């Protein structure tokens, strides 16, 4: 049970946050403003330190020392002129801001995590700033197009705008004598009209540059249950699997190890009865242990006890499939230890394989994993358990049908394998 709980919670837990030294050289009380909007610096810093374990340092040397010693996996240095340069982005004299990242490459896996996290955070920051720069650019374009007031270097200017310019020029046109002068005026009017029409398109274009790809998420396969419920399902299914599989396979192999099988089946009980009794024993014990475990986990996680009936259905169906598989293993093994070892060696890897998500491996390998997982009761039992615990889980009916097929298949296999027990 302990292993099952650990496995369940381990797979649902996110990766450990990398420790990163954080040096902020930007002077206090410096505001960051893009396009007239002030950015919430404190909130941005909190978000950053939520994603990584920020170890505050007071100097660049301290940051490098910590990286070199391995105390942190990397360092993030925000230079003193960062805010100033970000502020310049929406001005007419923009400068590109830079941050410094120092990474310890001794642990390539975690260094990669730091790189990915920082890259992700900077992408988010860049996107935020780009939106505001685009908005400012769009405002400038609007000014050029429609006219208005412009503040530059402390002075206020009136800007006529292309629309008004074209209109003024159009009004002046009749007063200009035919000839070269009017022809030149016509060219200016045409330019102003063309510029007005095309600059109308520049606003959406700037917005598109600021966010070239927009995520539009569509969920096509139902909603996923909460992660803690999934973790509990995994833990409960592991418990049910080990209890039932090991009990049934071991107790059936015991009949052979103790030489009692031939004596029992000489007329005291039929082979089918013996098999059924072992399965019922396994399912009964599995049910009790799993329900007790769920009741214990209720101390840590809220479970929906209104769905208790569905839990029982899921446990009974899953337990019966594990018991049938255990009977097949027990009937094939000559002694208890061999049966237990075989059950363990088969069940654990296949159960863990069943947890591999799509996309984690290549498509061909994933198809193979899916086939293997479908031949063993863990995956459908997990689906049934998840569906029993939470309405957002997978289809309970499909899982029960899958389990019923496996019960029939493994039961038949066990019955056939029992013929070997008669050999003296």
């Amino acid at each position, binding site marked *: 049970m302990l292993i099952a709980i650990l496995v369940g919670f381990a797979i649902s837990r996110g990766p450990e946050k990398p420790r990163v030294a954080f040096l902020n050289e930007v002077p206090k009380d410096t505001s960051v403003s893009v396009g007239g909007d002030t950015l919430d610096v404190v909130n941005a810093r909190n978000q950053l330190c939520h994603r990584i374990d920020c170890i505050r340092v007071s100097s660049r040397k301290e940051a490098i020392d910590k990286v070199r010693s391995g105390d942190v996996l990397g360092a993030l240095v925000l230079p003193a002129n960062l805010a100033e340069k970000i502020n310049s982005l929406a001005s007419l004299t923009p400068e590109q801001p830079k941050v410094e990242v120092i990474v310890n490459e001794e642990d390539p896996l975690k260094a990669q995590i730091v790189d990915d996290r920082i890259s992700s955070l900077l992408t988010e920051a860049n996107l935020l700033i780009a939106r505001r720069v685009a908005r400012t650019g769009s405002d400038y374009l609007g000014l050029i197009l429609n006219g208005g007031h412009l503040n530059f270097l402390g002075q206020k200017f009136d800007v006529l705008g292309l629309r008004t310019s074209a209109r003024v020029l159009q009004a002046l046109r009749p007063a200009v004598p035919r000839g070269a002068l009017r022809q030149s005026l016509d060219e200016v009017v045409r330019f102003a009209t063309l510029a007005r029409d095309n600059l109308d398109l520049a606003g959406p274009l700037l917005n598109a540059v600021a966010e070239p790809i927009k995520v539009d998420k569509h969920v096509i396969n139902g909603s996923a249950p909460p992660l803690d419920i999934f973790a509990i399902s995994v833990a409960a299914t592991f418990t049910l699997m080990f209890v039932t599989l090991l009990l049934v396979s071991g107790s059936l192999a*015991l009949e052979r190890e*103790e*030489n*009692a099988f*031939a*004596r*029992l089946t*000489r*007329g*005291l*009980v039929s082979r089918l009865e013996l098999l059924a009794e072992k399965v019922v024993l396994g399912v009964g014990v599995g049910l009790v242990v799993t329900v007790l475990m769920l009741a214990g986990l209720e101390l840590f996680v809220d479970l929906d006890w209104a769905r208790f009936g569905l839990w029982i259905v899921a446990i009974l169906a899953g337990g019966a499939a594990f018991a049938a598989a255990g009977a097949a293993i027990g009937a094939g093994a000559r002694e208890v230890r061999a049966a237990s070892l075989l059950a363990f060696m088969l069940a654990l890897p296949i159960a863990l394989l069943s947890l591999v998500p799509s996309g984690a491996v290549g498509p061909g390998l994933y198809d193979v994993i899916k086939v293997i997982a479908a031949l063993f009761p863990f995956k459908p039992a997990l689906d049934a358990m998840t569906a029993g615990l939470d309405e957002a889980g997978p289809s309970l009916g499909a899982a029960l049908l899958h389990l019923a097929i496996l019960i029939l298949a493994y039961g038949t296999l066990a019955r056939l394998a029992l013929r070997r027990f*008669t050999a*003296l």
Partner: protein
Amino acid sequence: MAEAPAPAATALEARGLVKRYGDRIALRGIDFSAEAGDRLAVIGPNGAGKTTLLSILAGILQPDEGEIHLPRGEVGWVPQQAALYRRLTAEENLRLFARLEGHEDPDATVAEMLELTGLEDRRHDQVARLSGGNQQRINIAIGLLARPGVLLLDEPSVGLDPRQRARLWDFVLALAERGTTVIFSTHNIQEAERYGRGLLVIADGERLFDGSPAGLREVVAAEAPEAADRDFETAFVAFLHHRGH
């Protein structure tokens, strides 16, 4: 005029038993019979078909040909290796099988069997802690739970020391004296001569001899006279040799 003795009641009769495992023939038309209270030793070299024959008599295997008559009903079967739950006590094993046999008063049956085996004082001992001889006695007692007219013992004394063997055979002889027909297989030729009233010699699935130990000596004297005065095991080996085995 003296009255002719009443014919002994037949407890078991086998006719033309044949058993094949693929191309290999394990039994080739075995015929024999045993009477009530008889003690029949089935002997022969390794692979002769002794265990196959007893398994067919016990109903564990089905013969490909031939038939078995059991006028006195049930056959009790005691496998070569003790068929007991070693983690249970002697009493628990007896009670479990008494219940499975459908005894109305399992506790009384357990008490009777413990008395029969002389293991009343070891009733609470785990079977795994009992000696091989005592385990075999419990094993036989379980074979007797169905009150069989015929008891089949597959090499019952294997692995026992001489003292345990002697106690085991005392127990078996007492059963036969009460009217139980005992059919046992053994590799121990002296044991077969000493405890078997009749001998059934088989080799390569074929019946070579069916009669008394004295009858086998007469056959040996006729077929292999040089071994006639030797010990029974030597005479038996000479007999097999003369018959091509």
